[in-house]
C-alpha cells in the first residue's frame, strides 16, 4: 500500500497526532496535505540524516527484513538484543513508536488480535536508498565483456504491442474469469519473454495454467491502468494513470514500468527478492559490475540468493545486459533504474520517421504513447533496437470502425513524427478513412461521419508531467473485478480486507512497557542491591520487557541483555544473555557474539535500563 492510500484510510484520531509530529507539523504549510508531506523524499532524506541512530537502525532493519510487506510486530522483536542489530528489544519497541509518530511506519489491528506493521510501499524504496545503499565499485569504463546477452528492445515495446493486440480484438474470459488458453497462448507467442525468465506470479487458480508471459502482460496492463475488465472480457482502455504513463518520455516510462513490475512480481512476504531488486537500482547504468561483488554487497543472504532470478528477468525484459569478462560474470543496466538520475530526453530523438512508402522508423527513444497510437494505425514489421511499422489499410479501417476519424489519425501521426505527413501517407489515409469501394452506381461511398472525438482511442494524451497515480487500480473492487474473484484481491494485496488502522497515539514513555508504572521506581532509576529473589524478579521483568540491565559484577559495571533465566544444578539460577558496550556517539549496543551465563550470586547491584528514561530528549528533529 502506498502512503496516499494509507492516509486516506486513517481515522481522524490518527491523523491528528500525525499532523502534530515533529517531522511533519512544519511541512504542512501552504496547503500541503499530510500524505504529500509524509511521502516527500526530501523529508525522508532529512530524517535519515538527523534521526537518532536507534530509529534509523530500526527502520533499516524493517526495510531489510520485510520490505514493503506488512509484518507482525512479534517477528521484529527477536532481533532486539542480538547481533548485528544490537539495540535491545525495549529500545526496538520504542523505536517503532517513534517511527509511527513520524509517519514512517503504520500499524494495523487485525480482528483476531494480531497487529501488523508496515512501511508504505512508495516510501520503502526511498528508505532503502537512504539507509541501505548498495555500495559496489563498477569495472573500469571500457571493460570488455564476451557473450553479452541482452534483449534488443525493452519490455515496454513488447507490452504496448501485446496491449494493442487486445485493443484490436479484446480478450474473452472463460466462465472462471481467466483468458481462454488459445488466446493466452497467442498473446504469449507474440512476446519475446520466456516463461522461465519470469518470477512466479500471484494469480487466482484459474489463471495458473496460462503462459507466464501472457499473464505478465495482463497483470502489468492492469497495474499500469491500460487494461480493465469489461464483463466477460478484458479490454484495453487506458485510464488516467495509464494515459499519464503513455505521455512520459521513453526513459521515465521504462523506469515506471520497472517499478510496476517489481510491485507486481515481488510478492508480499519475499523481502529478499524485493531488497535485491531495489538494491540493484543503485547501480549506475551502462557500467559493468561483477556479479560476485554485487552478491557480497547485498545487505542480506536472502537478497543475494534472490538476486539471480530477478536479474534473469531484468535481462529478459531488456533492462539489463549480462556478460562475462576476465574477472567473471558481470552485468549492467541498459536503462536508467534510478529516478533521481533520470535526465531529460534529447530533443528530436523521441520522434519516429514517417517515410513516403508508409513505413515508420521508430527509434528506441520514442515514448510509449507514440507507439500506442502508431499501433492503432500500423502493423509492426520488425522489432529490434529500432522498430519498423507500416501504416496499414486494415489497421486504419479498424480504427475508423472504432471511432477514429481521418483528422485524428493525421494528427496522431504528425504528433508522433513531429512533421507534416508525407504526401503518400496523406493520400493513403484519405483512401482508407474514406474507405468503401465503389457501389453499384459507380460512385464512391460517402465518407464516414466523424465520430465524437472522445470515443476515439486517439484523443490527445496529457502533455503535462503528471504523477502516475495508482488510486484507481489499487481499488479493491477493481482488483477483484479484473480477476473475477473477490478473494484474489486479498491474495494479491497481502494486507487483505477487514483492516483497521491503529489510531492510538504512539507511546513514548514507560507506559510502553506493561507494568512499568507498577514496579518500584528504584528498579528503573539506579542500580541497587537486592535480595536474590528480588534480583530474579528484576531480571525476569527485564526479560519480559526485553530491556537491558545495568549491573555490577566483581566491582565492574556491565551492561547486559538478559535472554532467559536458567535453573542451575544447585537449586539456584543464572541468567543467560549478552554483555554489551555502547558505541561512542551513537550509543548503539555492541553485543557479545555469543551469550554468556551470569550466576545469580555474581550479580551485585542492578537496575533495568529502559530507553525512554535515557534518550527521550534526542528523539526530535534538530530545528
Amino acid at each position, binding site marked *: 500500500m502506498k502512503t496516499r492510500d494509507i492516509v486516506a484510510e486513517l481515522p481522524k484520531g490518527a491523523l491528528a497526532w500525525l499532523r502534530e509530529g515533529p517531522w511533519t507539523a512544519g511541512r504542512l504549510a501552504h496547503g500541503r496535505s499530510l500524505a504529500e508531506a509524509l511521502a516527500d523524499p526530501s523529508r525522508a532524506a532529512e530524517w535519515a540524516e538527523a534521526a537518532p541512530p536507534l530509529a534509523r537502525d530500526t527502520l533499516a532493519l524493517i526495510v531489510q527484513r520485510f520490505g514493503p510487506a506488512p509484518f507482525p510486530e512479534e517477528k521484529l522483536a527477536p532481533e532486539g538484543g542480538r547481533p548485528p542489530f544490537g539495540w535491545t528489544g525495549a529500545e526496538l519497541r520504542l523505536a517503532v513508536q517513534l517511527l509511527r509518530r513520524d509517519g514512517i511506519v503504520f500499524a494495523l489491528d487485525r480482528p483476531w488480535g494480531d497487529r501488523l506493521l508496515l512501511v508504505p510501499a512508495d516510501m520503502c524504496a526511498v528508505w532503502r536508498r537512504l539507509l541501505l545503499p548498495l555500495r559496489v565499485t563498477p569495472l573500469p569504463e571500457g571493460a570488455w565483456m564476451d557473450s553479452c546477452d541482452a534483449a534488443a528492445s525493452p519490455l515496454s515495446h513488447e507490452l504496448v504491442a501485446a496491449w494493442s493486440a487486445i485493443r484490436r480484438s479484446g480478450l474473452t474470459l472463460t466462465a472462471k474469469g481467466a483468458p481462454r488458453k488459445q488466446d493466452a497462448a497467442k498473446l504469449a507467442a507474440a512476446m519475446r519473454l520466456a516463461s522461465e525468465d519470469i518470477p512466479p506470479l500471484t494469480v487466482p487458480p484459474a489463471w495458473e495454467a496460462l503462459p507466464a508471459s501472457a499473464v505478465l502482460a495482463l497483470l502489468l496492463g492492469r497495474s499500469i491502468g491500460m487494461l480493465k475488465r469489461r464483463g466477460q472480457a478484458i479490454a484495453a482502455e487506458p485510464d488516467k494513470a495509464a494515459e499519464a504513463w503513455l505521455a512520459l518520455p521513453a526513459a521515465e516510462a521504462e523506469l515506471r514500468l520497472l517499478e510496476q513490475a517489481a510491485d507486481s512480481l515481488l510478492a508480499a512476504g519475499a523481502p529478499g527478492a524485493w531488497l535485491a531488486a531495489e538494491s540493484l537500482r543503485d547501480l549506475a547504468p551502462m557500467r559493468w559490475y561483477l556479479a560476485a561483488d554485487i552478491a557480497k554487497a547485498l545487505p542480506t543472504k536472502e537478497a543475494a540468493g534472490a538476486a539471480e532470478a530477478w536479474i534473469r528477468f531484468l535481462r529478459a525484459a531488456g533492462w539489463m545486459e549480462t556478460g562475462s569478462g576476465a574477472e567473471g560474470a558481470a552485468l549492467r543496466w541498459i536503462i536508467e533504474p534510478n529516478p533521481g538520475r533520470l535526465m531529460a530526453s534529447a530533443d528530436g530523438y523521441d520522434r519516429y520517421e514517417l*517515410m*513516403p512508402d508508409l513505413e515508420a522508423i521508430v527509434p528506441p527513444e520514442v515514448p510509449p504513447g507514440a507507439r500506442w497510437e502508431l499501433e492503432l494505425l500500423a502493423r509492426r514489421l520488425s522489432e529490434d533496437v529500432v522498430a519498423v511499422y507500416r501504416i496499414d489499410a486494415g489497421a486504419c479501417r479498424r480504427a475508423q470502425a472504432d471511432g477514429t476519424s481521418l483528422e485524428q489519425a493525421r494528427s496522431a501521426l504528425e504528433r508522433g513524427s513531429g512533421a507534416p505527413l508525407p*504526401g503518400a501517407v*496523406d*493520400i493513403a489515409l*484519405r483512401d482508407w478513412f474514406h474507405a*468503401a469501394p465503389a457501389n453499384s452506381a459507380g460512385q464512391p461511398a460517402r465518407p464516414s461521419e466523424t465520430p465524437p472525438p472522445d470515443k476515439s482511442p486517439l484523443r490527445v494524451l496529457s502533455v503535462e508531467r503528471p504523477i502516475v497515480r495508482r488510486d484507481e487500480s489499487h481499488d479493491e473492487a477493481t482488483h477483484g473485478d479484473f480477476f473475477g474473484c473477490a478473494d484474489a484481491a486479498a491474495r494479491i494485496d497481502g494486507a487483505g480486507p477487514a483492516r483497521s488502522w491503529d489510531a492510538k497515539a504512539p507511546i513514548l514513555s514507560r507506559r510502553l512497557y506493561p507494568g512499568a508504572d507498577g514496579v518500584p521506581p528504584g528498579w528503573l532509576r539506579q542500580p541497587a542491591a537486592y535480595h536474590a529473589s528480588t534480583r530474579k524478579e528484576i531480571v525476569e521483568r527485564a526479560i519480559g520487557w526485553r530491556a537491558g540491565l545495568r549491573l555490577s559484577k566483581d566491582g565492574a559495571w556491565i551492561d547486559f541483555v538478559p535472554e532467559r533465566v536458567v535453573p542451575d544444578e544447585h537449586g539456584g539460577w543464572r541468567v543467560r544473555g549478552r554483555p554489551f558496550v555502547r558505541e561512542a556517539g551513537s550509543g548503539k549496543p555492541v553485543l557479545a557474539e555469543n551469550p554468556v551465563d551470569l550466576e545469580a550470586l555474581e550479580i551485585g547491584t542492578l537496575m533495568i535500563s529502559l530507553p525512554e528514561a535515557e534518550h527521550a530528549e534526542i528523539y526530535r528533529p534538530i530545528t
Partner: protein
Amino acid sequence: MPVIEAGEPLPLALRSSGGLTGLRDYQQAAVDALLGGEGEAARAATAESTAPAAAGGSGVVVLPCGAGKTWVGIGAIARLGCETLILTPNTVSVTQWIRELRRATTLGDDQIGAYTGDRKEVRPVTVATYQVLSSRGGERGTNAHWPLFQDRNWGLIIYDEVHLLPAPVFRLTAELQATRRLGLTATLVREDGREGDVFALVGPKAYEAPWKSLEEAGWIAEASCSEVRVPLEPDCAERYADAPARARSRIAGENPRKAEVVRALLARHEGEQALVIGQYLDQLRRVSRELGLPLVTGDMPHGERQALFDRFNRGELRALALSKVANFAVDLPDAAVAVQISGSFGSRQEEAQRLGRILRPKADGGGASFYSLVSEHTDEVEYARRRQRFLVQQGYRYEVRRWTEDGSAADRPAAESSR
C-alpha cells in the same frame, strides 16, 4: 578461403573509339568494388604459372534501369580477361548483350556465342537464357545442355536480372564452384521475400547506386511519376462488386475507360515517343486497335519483335503497346513516356522495370514521364501503392490525379498533396 579458378584466359580490351568512352565513373566503381585490385594480377598469374589466382570477386551490382549494367559486366570481363558465361532472362536480352559485346570490346564474332532455343553456340563468351539451362530432356530427366557448360573452363558467370534467378539454375551453376559470379539487377526485391537468397547464391551486394544519385548526375533521365485514378463505368463497377475476389483485379485492370486516358496522355505528349504497357493481352489488343498502336507480345517471333523495336528506335513509330516483355531488358533508348495500363498485382520489381524502360538519358536532355492508370475505389489502388514502394524508397514521388467524369481535367489532383 576457397580457391577461385581464373578460368581460361581470354585476351580482350574495351574499345575506346567510335563514340565509346569506356566505363562511366560509377560503372568503373562497380567493377572495382566487385574485383578490387584483381584482374591485372590474376592475368599475370595465370599467364606465367599454373598457380590459381587470388580468391574473391563474386557479388551483386545494383544499378537503376538505363544505367548500363551491361557495361559493368563487360568491364568485369575485360578486367579479368577470362572465358565468361552470361545468363539472361530471354532472347531479346541475349541479342542486346551480344550487340554490346561486339560494339564495346575487341572480341571477334567467333569468340561470342548465343545459346538459346534457336542457336547453340558455345564460345569463349557465351550468352544463354535461364530457360535453356533449366530445361530438361536429357537422360533420366537431366539437363541436356549441361555437359557443354561443364566442360568449359569459365572464369566468370554473369547473372543478368539476377533477382529473377531461379533456384534450379543456380543449383546447376553452383557445381562450377571455383568460378566468380556477378549478379546484375536494378531491383533487388522479390515479392516472395527471398531477396536474401541472391546474396547467398551469388555473393554479397558489392555495389549499389541510388537511382536519384544517377539522375542528378545525368546518367539516367529525370522522371516524373503519376498515378491516374480512373473511375469505373457503372456496369463495370457492378461487375466488380459482384465478382469473387480473384476476378476483381482483372476487371479493374481492364477498365475500358483507361483507353481514353491513354489517348489523352499520348496527345499531351505529342512529339515524344511513348510505350503503353499492360498485363492483359485482351486489353492491349483493344487499346492497340482503338489507338492504332503496334503491339509487341511475348509470343511474337523474335525477328518480328526486333523489327518493331528497330522501327521505334529509328523514329518511324511514335508509340508501341507492349505486354510483359516490357518487364525485361528492352532497348528503346528514346522512349520518354510510359503509360502502364495494368500490372501484376503488387510487384514492385515490375513497376521499377517499367519505369526503367524510359530512363535512358534523352538526346535533347529532356525528362521522362511515367503514368500508372489505376481504377478508382478498387483493389488496384492498394496494389499500386505496393508496386510503387520500391521507387518511393528510391526517392520518386507519385502525383496522384483523378480522371474526371468528362475527362476534361486530367490535371486535377485527387488529393491536396502528392505521394
